[in-house]
């Protein structure tokens, strides 16, 4: 019996997706609501973005509700209204992010100039025109303090994570609790602690190392938590394989587990840096601040990017505020770069 091959190839379809006519309907409702909001604002004494947004939202939701009620029914109409609120929530959450990014860019770029990265403020005042002076001292300060904080925090953070994932001894619950508790410590408390423990007792002076120590308190929990997450993702078979080959626990961890988690641990470090790069309050308390490059973290007050921004802002003049925005732009670019690097790394690992 010969089978006749069907000449018709059936194509996959998705009949549940919105048809062009339905999309057109939505666009129509959108435009109508827009028109209503403009109309109402023009006619009544209401003003401002809030008025436009609020009336547009009310008009859009009401129209959508009526449309759904008469075509589909009460339940669908409620669904549509809920959708309106939910989307609005998302818009409200997204708006500040965009506003912040745009603001910093627009206000900050005016203050950016090439020599900014190679001069400090010893010869200029914050009120001087933006082109004079720069933030090199702040960059050096942030770089040094964060680097030293990394040196302190990475071992402690990773060791903590290793305890929680590899050893899991009887301190596991307390340590997990403590890590979480530490991540909630307000940054100013970290500053006060270093102040009371080291500066008032022993050092009696501001210095960069003190800043690093305060930053470590904030960095360790971030690194510990992210490292823990990353280590937990390593499948147990890997560890079993190492031990089955006759490896001791420490060899297995050092030579098998940690390398496997390498990029994740780097991500943890990057996130730790991003966390503390913008901290202001503790540095004000323990690192002081200065207008000059200071390459010695053990001696003398040290500036930082947040300090620079803070000081510029507090001077209050037009020029100094411009400096503040420029400083923030630099800081934000650094955070953005770090963040992108972290995401790139974790995407590569296929997390």
């Amino acid at each position, binding site marked *: 019996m010969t089978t006749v091959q069907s000449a018709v190839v059936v194509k996959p379809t998705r009949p549940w997706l919105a048809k062009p006519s339905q999309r057109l309907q939505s666009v129509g409702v959108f435009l109508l609501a827009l028109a209503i909001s403009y109309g109402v604002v023009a006619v009544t004494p209401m003003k401002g973005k*809030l008025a436009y947004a609020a009336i547009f939202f009310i008009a859009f939701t009401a129209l959508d509700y009526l449309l759904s009620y008469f075509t589909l029914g009460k339940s*669908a109409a*409620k*669904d549509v209204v*809920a959708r309106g*609120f*939910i*989307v609005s*929530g*998302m818009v*409200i*959450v997204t708006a500040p*992010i965009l506003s*912040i990014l745009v*603001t910093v860019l627009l206000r900050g770029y005016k203050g950016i100039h090439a020599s900014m990265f190679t001069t400090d403020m010893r010869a200029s005042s914050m009120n001087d025109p933006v082109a004079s002076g720069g933030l090199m001292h702040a960059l050096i300060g942030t770089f040094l303090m964060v680097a030293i904080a990394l040196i302190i925090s990475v071992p*402690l953070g990773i*060791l*903590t994570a*290793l*305890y*929680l994932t590899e*050893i899991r001894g009887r301190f596991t619950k307390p*340590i997990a609790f*403590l890590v*979480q*508790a*530490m991540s*909630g*410590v*307000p*940054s*100013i408390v970290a500053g*006060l602690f270093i102040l*009371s*423990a080291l500066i*008032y007792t022993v050092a009696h002076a501001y210095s960069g190392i003190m800043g690093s120590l305060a930053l470590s308190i904030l960095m*360790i929990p971030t690194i*510990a938590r992210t490292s823990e997450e990353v280590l937990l993702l390593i499948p147990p078979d890997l560890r079993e394989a190492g031990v089955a080959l006759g490896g*001791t*626990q*420490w*060899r297995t961890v050092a030579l098998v587990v940690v390398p496997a988690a390498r990029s994740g641990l780097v991500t943890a470090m990057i*996130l730790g840096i991003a966390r503390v*790069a*913008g901290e*202001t*309050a503790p540095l*004000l308390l323990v690192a002081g601040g200065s207008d000059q490059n200071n390459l010695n973290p053990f001696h003398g007050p040290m500036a930082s990017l*947040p300090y620079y921004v*803070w000081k510029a*802002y507090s001077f209050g003049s037009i020029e100094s505020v411009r400096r*503040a*925005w420029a400083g*923030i732009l630099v*800081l*934000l670019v650094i*955070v*953005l770069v770090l*963040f992108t690097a972290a*995401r790139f790394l974790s995407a590569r690992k296929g997390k």
Partner: protein
Amino acid sequence: MPSATGLPQRRELTTKPRFSDKVFRTVVTTGGLSSLLILGLIFSFLAYQGFSILKMEGFHFITGSNWQVVLDEAGNIDKANTAFGIAPMLIGTILCALIALVVAVPVSVLAALYLTFYAPPALKRFLVSIIDLMAAFPSILFGLWGFFILMPSVEYWAKLLHKYLGWIPFFKMEVPVFTRSPFIAGVVLAIMVIPIVTSISREVFAQTPLDRVQAAYALGASRWAMIRAVVIPYGRSGVVGGAMLGLGRAMGETVAVYTVLNIVYQVNWHILVGAGGNVASMILLKFGEAGAQEVKALMGAGLVLFLLTLLVNSIANAIVLRSGGKGR
């Protein structure tokens, strides 16, 4: 060798750890206990430094509203005229943080619902990235942006609130100063806290058991009806935990509040009036010119803040972990 019951006796499995492993364990355990050490030290030093002042004031430290330092010629505290009470700032801390929650939580929950149930995959990835990015913004950025960009708009809303809802005690105003009020500080804090609450809510919503979701849909539920019937009952406690974590963050915020709020040392329940403060920003403010004794009082204030945020965050984390989210 059989025991009395006839069953073979169990053998005890022991391993004698190698020396290198013992060293490993010790090193890792010590590293792990570093957090215990650090937290303990924080508590100890703050308490030690602030002790004399705390002893002097006793409970009044938390309940008193006066903060003034009067020194005699020798530079010691004139006990009769000196008082350290952080009540106004403590109330301000809680007030600003609560305003932040009232604004942030509804919006965050809605956004989390959008991301989990409505967003197309590519858009979702993008939005989640930028929300996580916002979590990494430095707080001084929020302070500057809040002061220069947000405040004019919020001022306008405050005026509206006063005009239409001014009969509610919170929104009354004796003096019509709308700028730099706890309300504005609360809104700025809300924006800082939104990423935390949104991402925890998202985690919790994403774990809604699929079989319940399908059961609801199979019964003819619309998407919203399903969310109401299944997702919200399931995710409720997780969202509460996330909100509390946001509360802890808002309570400890220093620089953003300092920039935006006009710090005045008196209790202010009228959140639209431009006067207030929180403990963290007060510490920063007074620190610059504080004498030795006042510094001790500030340490005491820091201790109170430390314990308060510790309490809130611990409860919050416990709730979040119990409802299936990841701790923060």
